[in-house]
């Protein structure tokens, strides 16, 4: 795959899916401990699509979501994002803090402490995800501290599309859906590696 190649072969897709499986497996264990209930994961979705098509595949550019983004650096660059609907973010915060949501200041999505709890939860989840991938690939990667916002999906994801657009016209995303059995929580973890990094990942596993 590459800038001028907008296709992934079946083997590359399988490798990314396996990476997602392992990453999300660890992330769901971490989330499970935080939420104190079993958390499962969907079959990961791996897509290489034109920049403008990504929003529609993830529920539409106007879908209102809570997004928490972390930048990946080190041997790989890219973004790791957690995307969830507002009630689900609220659930995570309430379980994390063991108390009902605080009233947010005007114009903000959550109170400072609530937002901080959400970011911490995503940080732990993202850290587990990435650590698992590091162990699997032998690559060394780091995460920046998370940034959170509630906005339209298009606005949240533009941060990752800007990165993808700088090197090509396509974006690769690796999506893992996490949910708990009681259906109180469901959210997506999205790994969006830069084009170069998607090759690094494949190479580290002996493919390409």
């Amino acid at each position, binding site marked *: 795959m590459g800038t001028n190649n907008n296709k992934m072969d079946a083997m590359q897709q399988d490798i990314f899916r396996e990476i997602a499986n392992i990453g999300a497996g660890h992330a769901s264990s971490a989330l499970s401990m935080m939420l104190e209930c079993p958390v499962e994961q969907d079959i990961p979705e791996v897509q290489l699509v034109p920049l403008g098509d990504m929003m529609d595949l993830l529920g*539409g550019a106007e879908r209102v979501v809570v997004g928490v*983004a972390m930048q990946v650096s080190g041997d790989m660059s890219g973004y790791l994002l957690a995307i969830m609907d507002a009630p689900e973010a609220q659930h995570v915060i309430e379980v994390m803090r063991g108390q009902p949501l605080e009233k947010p200041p005007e114009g903000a999505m959550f109170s400072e402490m609530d937002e901080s709890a959400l970011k911490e939860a995503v940080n732990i989840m993202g850290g587990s995800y990435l650590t698992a991938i590091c162990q699997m690939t032998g690559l060394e990667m780091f995460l920046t501290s998370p940034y959170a*916002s509630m906005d*339209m999906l298009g*606005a*949240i994801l*533009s941060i990752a599309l*800007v990165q993808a657009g700088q*090197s*090509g016209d396509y974006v690769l995303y690796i999506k893992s859906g996490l949910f708990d059995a009681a259906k109180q929580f469901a959210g997506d973890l999205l790994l969006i590696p830069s084009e170069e990094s998607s090759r690094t990942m494949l190479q580290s596993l002996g493919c390409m």
Partner: protein
Amino acid sequence: MATLMVNIAQIKIARPPDMLCALGLGSCVGVVLYDEDLKIAGMLHVLLPTPDGTGIGGQDTMTKFADPGILKLQEAVLQAGARKSRLKAKMAGGAAVLTASASGSVGIGQRNGEECLRMLAKMQIPIMGKDLGGTCGRSLYFDPGNNILRVKKLIGGESQL
């Protein structure tokens, strides 16, 4: 009446009663060029200010850049019959949604907005309305029938340019 969706890096042309629409813009900018006499309008959905010069591919879709995307937008509206001397512009977007976020995209919204303004100034197209910056995503709706650009935000509601 049709609503034409303008996705990232796309240019669409509309005449009344059709509308132009770009949804969920974060750091992206929506630029509209219109000829009010002939009621022809075109919208471009800008992702990045300029090619970064590293030359790593991605040059197929030059319309993802403000420069040369806005030139392509002008070509498209002129081709649809608009007159160059009558072209006017409206634009919105360029927010910093995940504020102070990751280094690579610090200020990308702001840079997008500035590059669009610079291009339009260079092309001598008057800017009749703009809503740039901030920290909130936007959806844009342009009606070539009355040349109003509606800007919808999650927080702060709706405004008209």
